[in-house]
Every structure is written in structure tokens, then in C-alpha cells.
């Protein structure tokens, strides 16, 4: 087995082990931290599909994360106040059911990503970076100035939404759910990476001219990748909102976009499990450094600088060697 495969398995085992230990030791806060790792990892896996496989440097993924969060917040708030979402032209009620909320989050995320992507992908390079950042900010300001769902103050949801057969209020059960979703998303992205689409997308990243010369349209490949990427990140936003039972415009902020990108970079760009390692490292740093100093972001910044300037493969690259897997 390759070093990276072993490392990936160890990562998953470690997450489960920490959660189980915290469960037996009755440390619900630690379980919440590990759940956060799984949820942030999903956001990062989503971005990594666009960034790692497609080479699209999106600084606007907070838009999708926030869309997912607000999909949950809006549906659940209508359900908890027993007011329909709309009555005309057809009656739409709120819901407290996670599967329904996830579906709505995924669809809303995909649709948003399709529109933002269709516009942003008309350009390349730095333009793309600036435009995605700007569209993310647009959602941020919209969420602040739209008072119906809490505006600047955000929107609390009193009881975590339900999943058939589980008690989601029990931290370990909610962790199990998020972990399972993360594994499913990993599997999905692994399949996509190995599919004809994955090959074409990877080719378009490395050499758009080559892809055109064999009769494929890079724009279309990028747009599809960006859409799937947005949908996955929106799903993680819905899970995150349910973890906190709270949504706020902060989910849309540029810092959120930056942090999702940090998960990918710390772990290793283009590596399937990179975002899992990156999110785990990020949460560990936040927990450990945040306990030492109120200003832990300075250390995070310094670490990020070191990784960018000297250790491009990220965490998995350091352990498993520079070569990115091809199969």
C-alpha cells in the first residue's frame, strides 16, 4: 500500500478514535470539535474539487457555505414558528427534517454556483479570484441587510433538526452522522476524480489548449466542477448550521472563504484527504494555540506563510512525499 493510503486510513481512524474516547470520557465539547472537523472537511473537499482538480482558485466558497446554512435556517425557522415559507403559488412549509434540508441546501448551492461560475469563468487567473471574492461579499451584505431572517444578528434555531432513526441532539450520534456524510462525499469525489469527467477536468487544468484540441470545452468542464463543488460546500454549511443551531452572515464572510481554502492548503492541494487533514490541523491549532494566546491567528498566519513558501505539498505531502496520486 502507498504511504498516502495508509495515512488516509489512519486519519479516519484517528477521528473516530478521538470521538469515541471523548464519548466514554464524557467530554461533549471534544466531540463537538471532532464533528466540526468532519463538517469543515466536507467544505474543503468541495472546494478541493474546484481548486485541486480544476485549478480554480475560488475565494468565494463562503457564498455556498452560507447558502447551505441559510437553507437550514430558513426552513427550520418556519417550521419552529409554524408559518409557511410561502403560500402562493403553492404552499411551501418549513421542515425540521435533515434529509429534506440537505437536499434543498445542495440544490440551492448548485444553482448559486452555476450562476456565479457562469459569470466568473468568463475570465481566468486573478480576475477569477477577485470576482469570486466579490460575489461572496455580495451575499454577506445581502444577508446583513435582509431583516426577515435575523439580518446582522443571525437566526437561532432552538432544537437541532431530526434525522430518521437517530437522536441528533446526542453529540456522538450527530458526529456519526456528519462523519458518515463526510465519508460518502469522499467516496463521491474519489469516483468523480477517476471518471471520464475527472480526467478531462484534470487535463483542462493542466493544459486547456490540449483539451480544446481534442474537442472538449474547458469552460463547460470548469462550470460543472464549480457547480458540484458549490453543492458539496453548501451541504457542509447546512451541517455546520445544525451543529451550532445558529446561522449568521459570518458564514458568508471573506474570512470563511479564506478558512475553507486554508483547510485545503494545510492538508495538501489536490489530495483527496487533504481537506480532512487540513481541517483537523486547523481545529487542533485553534484549540491548542487559542488556549495559549488570544492572538492565535498570528501563529496561524505564520504557519500558512511557511507552508506556502517552503512546504507546498501540505501535511499529507510532508508525510507521503511530493507526488500527487494519479489513479
Amino acid at each position, binding site marked *: 500500500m502507498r504511504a498516502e493510503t495508509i495515512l488516509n486510513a489512519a486519519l479516519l481512524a484517528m477521528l473516530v478514535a478521538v470521538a469515541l474516547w471523548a464519548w466514554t470520557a464524557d467530554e461533549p465539547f471534544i466531540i463537538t470539535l471532532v464533528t466540526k472537523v468532519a463538517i469543515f472537511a466536507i467544505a474543503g473537499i468541495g472546494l478541493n474539487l474546484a481548486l485541486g482538480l480544476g485549478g480554480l482558485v475560488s475565494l468565494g466558497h463562503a457564498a455556498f457555505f452560507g447558502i447551505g446554512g441559510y437553507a437550514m435556517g430558513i426552513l427550520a425557522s418556519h417550521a419552529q414558528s409554524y408559518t409557511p415559507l410561502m403560500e402562493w403559488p403553492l404552499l411551501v412549509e418549513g421542515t425540521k427534517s435533515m434529509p429534506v434540508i440537505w437536499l434543498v441546501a445542495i440544490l440551492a448551492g448548485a444553482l448559486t454556483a452555476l450562476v456565479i461560475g457562469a459569470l466568473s469563468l468568463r475570465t481566468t487567473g486573478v480576475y477569477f479570484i477577485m470576482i469570486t471574492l466579490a460575489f461572496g461579499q455580495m451575499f454577506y451584505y445581502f444577508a446583513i441587510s435582509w431583516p426577515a431572517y435575523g439580518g446582522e444578528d443571525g437566526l437561532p434555531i432552538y432544537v437541532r433538526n431530526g434525522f430518521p432513526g437517530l437522536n441528533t441532539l446526542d453529540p456522538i450520534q450527530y458526529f456519526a452522522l456528519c462523519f458518515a456524510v463526510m465519508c460518502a462525499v469522499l467516496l463521491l469525489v474519489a469516483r468523480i476524480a477517476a471518471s471520464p469527467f475527472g480526467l478531462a477536468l484534470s487535463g483542462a487544468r493542466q493544459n486547456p489548449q490540449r483539451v480544446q484540441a481534442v474537442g472538449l470545452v474547458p469552460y463547460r468542464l470548469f462550470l460543472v466542477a464549480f457547480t458540484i463543488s458549490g453543492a458539496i460546500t453548501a451541504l457542509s454549511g447546512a451541517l455546520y448550521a445544525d451543529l451550532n443551531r445558529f446561522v449568521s452572515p459570518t458564514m458568508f464572510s471573506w474570512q470563511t472563504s479564506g478558512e475553507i*481554502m486554508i483547510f485545503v492548503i494545510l492538508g495538501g492541494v489536490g489530495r483527496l484527504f487533504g481537506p480532512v487533514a487540513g481541517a483537523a490541523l486547523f481545529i487542533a491549532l485553534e484549540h491548542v494555540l487559542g488556549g495559549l494566546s488570544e492572538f492565535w491567528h498570528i501563529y496561524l498566519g505564520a504557519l500558512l506563510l511557511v507552508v506556502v513558501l517552503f512546504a507546498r505539498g501540505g501535511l499529507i505531502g510532508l508525510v507521503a512525499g511530493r507526488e500527487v496520486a494519479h489513479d
Partner: protein
Amino acid sequence: MSIVLLVEQVLNGLQFGVMLFLMAAGLTLIFGVMGLINLAHGSLYMVGAFAAAATAAATGSFLLALVASLVAAAAAGALVELTVIRRLYDRDHLDQVLATFALILIFSEGTRWVFGSFPLFLEVPDYLSGSVTLPGGIEYPLYRLTMILIGLAVAAGLFALIAHTRIGIRIRAGESDREMIGALGVNIARLYTLIFALGAALAGFAGALIGAIQSVQVGMGEPVLILAFVVIVIGGIGSIKGALVGAILVGLTDTLGGFLLPRLFTLFMDASSAMTMGSALAAMSIYLLMAGVLLFRPTGLFGGP
């Protein structure tokens, strides 16, 4: 709605626009010459504002505060260029984004560490406070009018610098061919540090000027940075003229959108929902403007093909 109110809003938009220009000009210059996307430009804006506020508090002089903003931001810019930025010129955009994002974290937390989390205040000096009466009997704050004039003067100075001076010639040459001017014996490394410090000084100066009408606090730079990006996308990358036109378009759209849209919506809905709809749409207006430009001219109004 009176015409006086409208003129006042147009002037506010203009004032906002010229300040955005100071930010965008540095960014677009740095991109045009060095091919670098600098997310930490907003931090330099913040450095200028804090330097001004601290100097004003210590000396009581607004003029000294402005000088301090220029010096501090230029020095911070040069320092960052020498230590980090110059390692990034040959890297891809992703590395540039990440490293300059890391710089934001370091600058923001560092500033919070030194100055604390509470905002500082920079007072408009007496000789610039109060308002003036413009032709047509329009009362307008003297300080804001001064900002417009200073901004336009800086823009004129920048155009003159690029069109007529030796440095300007090198900047233009650097945009078209990096290796060539190196071969001609120009010290590229020093030129780059100089341009970066110049861009930083402009950003810091804008931070100080705006700091007098808003509070000076950590995180003040990034929203302006993102607006400056919108300006550059609209104007076209690397073009100073594009930055000026884009900045004024964005300034006017933002200010007039917030002013006109709620009033427009009162024509066909009740006052409170009109206010809600109008201000929510106004918050999105400049991004919609950007989307429109992207549809018709993906490389911006003054960008190359």
C-alpha cells in the same frame, strides 16, 4: 426628494469613489507591473489609519497624522515586499493569495495586540470641519469636499508620474517586458520595492483620510479591498485610467443605489417593505454592476482583449 439631496449624494459617491481609486490604483499597478495579486493591500490601508490615529492622538496635528500614514504604510509595504512578497513574483496566483492572506492574519492580529480591540478615533481638524455652501445653495461638509479634491489631485499626480517621469517610463516598460528592462540595466528588485511602497502609501493615505469619518479598527481594510477588486474587474486590470473610471462608477452606484432604490420601491409597495427591498438590493448593486460588465466585457472597460 429634492435635487439638493441628490447632488449631495452624488458628491458622497464621488468622495467614496476617489478613495476607492487610491486603493485600486496601487493594486492595479502592482498587478500590472509585478503580476502579483495582493490581498494584504487592505492591511496597509489599516496600517495607515492606525498610524494616523496614533500620531494625531500624540501630537494633535492632523497634517502630521497624514504624513505618518504615508510613511508608516510605505515602510510596512517595503518591509513586506523585501521579506515575503518578492518570493512570490514567480509563484502561481494560488500561492500569492495564500501568502498575502497569511499576511492579513498577521497584520490584523498584530494590530489588535498592539492597539487592542476597541476602535480608535481620528478627529477632523477644526479648519476642515463645518460645511461650505456650494453654488446653488448646497451645504456640503468641507472635509468631504477636501477628500474629493485631494483624491483628484493624487490621481492627476499619478497620471503625470506615469506619463512623464523616468520612473513612470520604467513602470510602463516593466508592464510590457520584465526581462527587457532588466537587460537594459534597470535594477528590477529596487523598482519593484519602490512600486510596492508607492501602492502601500496610497492605500495608507486613503485609510487615514477615511479614518477621520469612520472609526479606525482592525478589519477595516478588507471590505474596502474587496470593493477595490470590484473596481479593478470593472476597470480592467493594470489600467490606472480603468481604476479611476471603475472607482467613480462603483462609488456612485453604491451611494446612489442606497439613496434611490428604497425611494424607487415606495412607488409600488408600502414604505417599510420598500426600505427593506431597496436597501437589500442596494447592497448588491455594485456586484450586479460587476456582473453586467463581465457579461459584456470580461476583461473590463479598459482591459486588454
